[in-house]
């Protein structure tokens, strides 16, 4: 047990919590604040959505998070807003008022989570006024399941709340004057539970060396499921989410290539602007990765270190020729990403290392990136197959072809035979057919609930068809947009 200090609905709060306690358990069990619900404990339903506020310079942002898979210790120095905090002196927040008016609540179990998602949207809209596009609305609400209402009333509420009078209450901008704790573990060999929150890479790597048995946690959106779904105890944790060096994005040149070093602890939400500008196809993928709540917490480093064969970013990073930097007390080393993934959930990272940064080379002129994620549901779903294609076209001929897939092997993996087939060839139906055939050399996928072996192999081949169509008949729409109208 260790003490954490944070703001709870505008008021300073301190309590003792064990490392493996989630924000949801803290609220519901320890603080008897039961407005926040648990529908799944796996980040899938959004019933547990809370808002986490962070004060930076002059802005005060609130982002939504799944309390069920966020460690309570990560609240240290932050502002936690829960459903209980919104209404003050009997005055409901516009999100609440609009939900009542538009009949956005039936059984009511999803409702607190939905109200909190709307609260963060409302806060965003009032701080940074911008049109509430359907895409923005869907992003804000995509991580909240409701089995009763049919969703449209909730959407109506989202639109309605903006017309309601609102005066930003002072408690929203309350600040906490507390230093963040950089926990030291005195005796890492002892079997004591701890939640260490180093602030520098040096402190992180030292901890990693002293306590290699401890688990690293970034956003927790993968790790925490081991606790809630597979009953692991997770009682020794090192949090990478405050390590300064891991939170930066730096435009620079590496090994002669211009590009960006991206800290492993940078979240998807933080990456969005960069990708929107330089890799729109990658940004588009981010919109379909998990939900807003997940994107607000999940990190690029976590996605890579997790080494899941169906993680979304690794195939894209492989296609882009990304490098990964591993750091330890001895220093750091850099690997091509394909050399990082060894086997199913096995990586080249040593027990005393961490993923510190990822280098993404800037796209060279005339190169293109295409990313297609195939999943059953439009929103909030894991890929069955994901294909990423990077190439350059010069006088009708394909160069620098790099293709990688997720969901096709034990690791995210390049399709080297298919790449070789396309490299230097013209954009012809024959060339793409040949590439489809060579995919059989590259992959023998497996069958599971998300797709049979046959489906995966076929779908991956069809993505070559899609690429061919998009290159040979550019005016034909083969890239699907969210809306059918």
């Amino acid at each position: 047990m260790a003490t954490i200090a944070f703001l709870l609905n505008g008021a300073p709060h301190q309590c003792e919590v064990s490392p493996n306690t989630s924000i949801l358990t803290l609220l519901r069990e320890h603080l008897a604040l039961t407005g926040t619900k648990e529908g799944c404990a796996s980040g899938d339903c959004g019933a547990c959505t809370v808002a986490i506020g962070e004060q930076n310079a002059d802005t005060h942002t609130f982002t939504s998070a799944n309390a069920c898979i966020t460690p309570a210790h990560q609240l240290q120095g932050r502002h936690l807003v829960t459903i209980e905090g919104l209404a003050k002196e009997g005055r409901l927040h516009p999100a609440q008022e609009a939900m009542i008016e538009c009949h956005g609540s039936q059984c009511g179990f999803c409702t607190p989570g939905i109200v909190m998602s709307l609260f963060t949207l409302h806060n965003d809209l009032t701080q940074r006024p911008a049109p509430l596009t359907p895409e923005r609305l869907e992003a804000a609400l995509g991580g909240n399941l409701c089995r009763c209402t049919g969703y449209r009333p909730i959407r109506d509420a989202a639109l309605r709340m903006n017309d309601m009078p609102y005066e930003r209450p002072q408690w929203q901008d309350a600040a906490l004057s507390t230093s963040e704790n950089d926990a030291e573990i005195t005796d890492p060999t002892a079997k004591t539970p701890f939640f260490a929150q180093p602030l520098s890479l040096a402190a992180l790597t030292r901890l990693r060396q002293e306590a290699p048995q401890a688990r690293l946690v970034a956003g927790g959106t993968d790790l925490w499921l081991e606790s809630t779904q597979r009953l692991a105890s997770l009682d020794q944790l090192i949090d990478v989410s405050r390590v300064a060096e891991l939170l930066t994005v730096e435009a620079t040149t590496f090994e002669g290539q211009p590009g960006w070093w991206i800290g492993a602890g940078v979240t998807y939400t933080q990456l969005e602007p960069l990708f929107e500008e330089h890799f729109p196809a990658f940004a588009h993928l981010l919109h379909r990765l998990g939900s807003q709540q997940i994107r607000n917490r999940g990190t690029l480093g976590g996605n890579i270190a997790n080494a899941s064969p169906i993680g979304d970013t690794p195939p894209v990073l492989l296609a882009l020729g990304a490098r990964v930097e591993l750091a330890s007390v001895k220093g750091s080393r850099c690997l091509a990403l394909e050399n990082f993934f060894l086997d199913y959930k096995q990586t080249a990272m040593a027990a005393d290392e961490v993923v510190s940064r990822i280098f993404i080379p800037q796209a060279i002129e005339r190169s293109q990136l295409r990313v297609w994620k195939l999943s059953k549901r439009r929103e909030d779903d894991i890929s069955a197959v994901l294909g990423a294609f990077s190439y350059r076209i010069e006088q009708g001929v394909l160069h620098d072809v790099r293709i990688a897939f997720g969901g096709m092997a034990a690791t995210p993996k390049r399709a080297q035979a298919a790449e070789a087939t396309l490299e230097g060839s013209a954009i012809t139906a024959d060339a793409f057919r040949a590439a489809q055939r060579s995919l059989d050399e590259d992959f023998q996928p497996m069958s599971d609930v998300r797709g049979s072996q046959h489906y995966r192999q076929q779908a991956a081949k069809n993505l070559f068809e899609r690429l061919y169509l998009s290159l040979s008949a550019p005016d034909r729409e083969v890239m699907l947009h969210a809306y059918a109208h």
Partner: protein
Amino acid sequence: MRFDSPAEQNVSDRMKVLGQPLRRIDGPLKTTGMAPYAYERHGVAKDQLVGYPVGSAIAKGRIVSMDIDEAQASPGVVGIVTTLEMERLPKVDWNVAYLFGGREIQHYHQAIAVVVANSFEEARAAAALIRVEYEEDQDATYDLAAVRQERLSDDVEPIDNIGDFESAYASAEVTLDATYTTPGQCHAQMEPHATIAQWDGDHLTLWTSNQMIEWSRQALATTFDLPAENFRLDSPYIGGGFGVKLFLRADAVMAALAARKVGRAVKLALPRPMSANNTTHRGLTIQRIRIGASQEGKITAIGHDNATNTLPGGDGENGARATRRFYAGENRLLINRALEIHLPESNAMRAPGETAGLMALEIAMDEMAEKLGMDPVEFRIINDTQVDPSHPERQFSERHFIECLQRGAEVFNWASRNKAPGSRREGAWLIGHGVAGAYRDAPAETSGARVSVRPDGSIRVETDMTDIGTGSYTIIAQTAAEMMGVSLEVVNVDLGDSRHPVSAGSGGQWGAASSTAGVYAACLALRKKIAERLAVDPEALEFSEGYVRYNDQQTALSELASAGSITAEDSIEFGDFRSEEYQLATFGAHFVEVAVHATTGEIRVRRMLAVCDAGRILNPMTARSQVIGAMTMGVGAALMESLAVDTRHGFFVNHDLAGYEVPVHADIPEQQVIFLEGEDPYSTPLKAKGVGELGICGVSAAVANAVYNATGARVRDYPITLDKFLDRLPEIA
């Protein structure tokens, strides 16, 4: 009071509060997080401990041994109850699988132990330490298709065998013989099953999440072999049920056993990954439908042979149910083969039988219309019936199915639909339109309530009726406000407590109609009591604006009750005329437009319309909410929902919300709902019927028909995912 003849003009006809589109009275509690759900009632019992359940890792067989030593020694553990400590606990008939006790394993994730600890984390960690050795039955079967094939020649007693189906079918001018499959579906209600249990001697209180308070009290009496009076259940707020909380479930039994063992209150929630296999699901079906008709489109023969999975003693999902009554046709052969398969318990889910049945029947109707070269709306109209085809002596009390179709066609602009399948393109998209009919019985059940006028002039209603998101709080308050002539704000409704009069509960689409009728009866009793006090004829009393008016006099309700609350209790019992002389049902028509991507086959639902004929609508807002929610579930069933069966090990693989996909915001388009004006005096004194289940009936088939209309590729195997028709998409020019 008894309801022995059709309702005449009565107080409820005033419709000052009833029938109005009023907001839910529980809205503020729910949007502020203050509505208390089962697992979070810290205040009701002191020193609550936490239970964590353990489920069986095999589907059929027995437990050889369990090693709990390590778990017992784990930090914080207070006690462990295992299934080996007791004989199999008795159950009532409406539960199909046993809930706890004994060595036998009937299904995967059957509850076999519960660990009780001081904290949730400790209980969970200890649960992971229990070691179980099983002996698996090698003869178990988990594959519905295979078992059906083997047992097709079995003699099964038909549900209906009217006329001579085989020869009528053989001689029909136009025929269809097609087989449809629907997968297992999961209720996926947002609130997991949860219970807090506390014993006081041999009296048990359960704060739980249950749709049918009295059924569960009776079930507890059987399971624990104690009088029903010894049990109290309280379920004021229920985070969704859709049928999965109709019966006593393992969460309540385990919490009760654990609380008894450790002598303290214990709370327990079924973890989401355990729900799908531990509780119930909508059974899988394989439905062969044969329809014979004349060239003019009159159905002469209709055959519906449904096969579904069940554990011993159940009916599974009886897909032939709606076919009994929906369409005319003199020769009828309807069969339900409830096949014993060792998957978890298949049992009621929203419109049990009708949902899966209409998923098939309403595609068949579409296929048949096409064969006949008819408009599918017209084909349905031609085959409408005003009598129950399975009992032609019984009339439908009210049946306006034709109006539903016609009104819908008009509003949806059906005339300008795509007529030739696969022929309408808008940019990258193929556009298609589909229609389907909806049918659901409108049963009613005995339902009671207690109503009081309190000294402050407010009205309090108490009944064990539940609100599972349906809006019971609101429509019950409306009923009482109407009957007692007060405004909605002064009505206070208390639900879900077994100390209150027994109601119909929430199930089978009977809840709203029955429970409001029960409140009506109790209000009449209260009015009578007030009349007695005033020594006037109750007929001469008028209740309005918080006053009782009679013979030019008026008295405020608060004054009447100034010396103490006046309370009356009654229940409504429905006479046999309702079911014997008439068939009561609800009807609807669904119209759907979809877009299917011409290259990739991805499907988007673009607009939906439902027209419903469900008697008097007590609150158009809550009724509409019910219907659009059900339509959404219907879209899920059409396009994505499917419990994946592991036919080797006998369980549902995708047993969480990551794997079992339900629709999300982005999947659901504009939905329009129209209720036909009307009332059904044969149904209840309020002339109302239910809508909550009607809303899902037929929706999936309307989507399926629209996908066919868009692409020209017929899929008879739900859910309709693009891999099932990709190779049949029209050639891209």
